[in-house]
């Protein structure tokens, strides 16, 4: 698996079906990742669609130096932060809409995370600070290297390492507390 580079090369060479492969491989994961920032699956999907349309509009912008996945996640993060910056005002959601959003989030989680253990971790990491959540998400759920995660987060490798170290420590406490509660 090359995280979409070869498919994107085929797409640049005119093979339209290659775009489907990229979509299948990366779209839902990107929505799930962006949702960590915006906490709204509809908005996350909208942002992911925008990010993918960038791939078509600016075909030469991706230079193949990092993986396509890293590039898309970088774009996704930047779009998500832009969105949050421009929508700073508190938005009130109807209770019924909130239920819908929660259901959608569950569906999204179902679509992206197959492993039960990962689902438990996913619930636990929601209690972590945002930057830790994102770092754990990239390394644990997206199987990114520390280098790629650092690129997406615009941090150094050492900073990502520190974030993950603290995140693991906190996750251990959270998961142990939950286990005790279940018992």
């Amino acid at each position, binding site marked *: 698996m090359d995280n979409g580079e070869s498919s994107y090369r085929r797409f640049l060479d005119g093979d339209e079906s290659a775009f489907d492969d990229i979509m299948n491989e990366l779209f839902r994961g990107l929505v799930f990742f962006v949702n960590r920032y915006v906490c709204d699956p509809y908005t996350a999907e909208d942002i*992911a*669609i925008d990010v*993918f349309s960038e791939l*078509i509009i600016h075909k030469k912008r991706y230079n193949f130096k990092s993986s396509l996945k890293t590039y898309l996640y970088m774009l996704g993060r930047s779009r998500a932060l832009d969105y949050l910056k421009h929508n700073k005002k508190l938005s009130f959601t109807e209770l019924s809409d909130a239920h819908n959003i929660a259901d959608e989030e569950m569906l999204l989680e179902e679509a992206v995370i197959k492993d039960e253990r990962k689902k438990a971790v996913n619930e636990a990491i929601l209690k972590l600070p945002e930057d830790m959540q994102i770092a754990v998400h990239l390394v644990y759920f997206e199987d990114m290297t520390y280098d790629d995660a650092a690129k997406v987060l615009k941090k150094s490798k050492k900073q990502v390492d520190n974030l993950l170290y603290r995140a693991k420590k906190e996750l251990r406490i959270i998961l142990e507390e939950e286990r005790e509660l279940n018992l």
Partner: protein
Amino acid sequence: MRDLNECKAEIFRRSDEKLEIRRRKLKRVLYTTLPVIVCVIAGAAIILPNTLFVKSDSEKPNGFMGGDEPGVAEEAFLSVEKNGEVLMRVTDSEDTRNSYNGISELFEAKAESSGGTISPEIGVGSVDGDSNPDCYTFTFLIDGEEERFVLSGNTLKRVSTGEKITVSPERLEEIIGF
């Protein structure tokens, strides 16, 4: 949430839309900047040669024009000096050119009568203004090029080549009108 096919369709719809907007923006920029660029180029083509011409002409004659009319471009200019003092100046281009042509013809006629050659003489001192009380210097500036002739007695010397011919002051007066 939409399924992947719907998302894909939306991606292509948005990218088409954005490309169209970009194309329109590019066209608008082109249509607004193109006339400006054309105007600038046309303006430069009109103004620049004049500016350059004024500059080159007003710089070169700086020594002997005496700064009478600074910045005024002269296509041809003649200054006549007698023993180092300015006797007269001709600023009329046509008169200056006629005078220059007249003198040049004298040199050519002399060259033809002496079998095509005029032997240049090295002794500049013989026609030097300092040693002769009646020494006239004719300085022509035509199209930016300077040519100097020195008349000492009956001998007229072209300073640049050192050619000499014999000519009476009356004949020169006839040609130049000094």
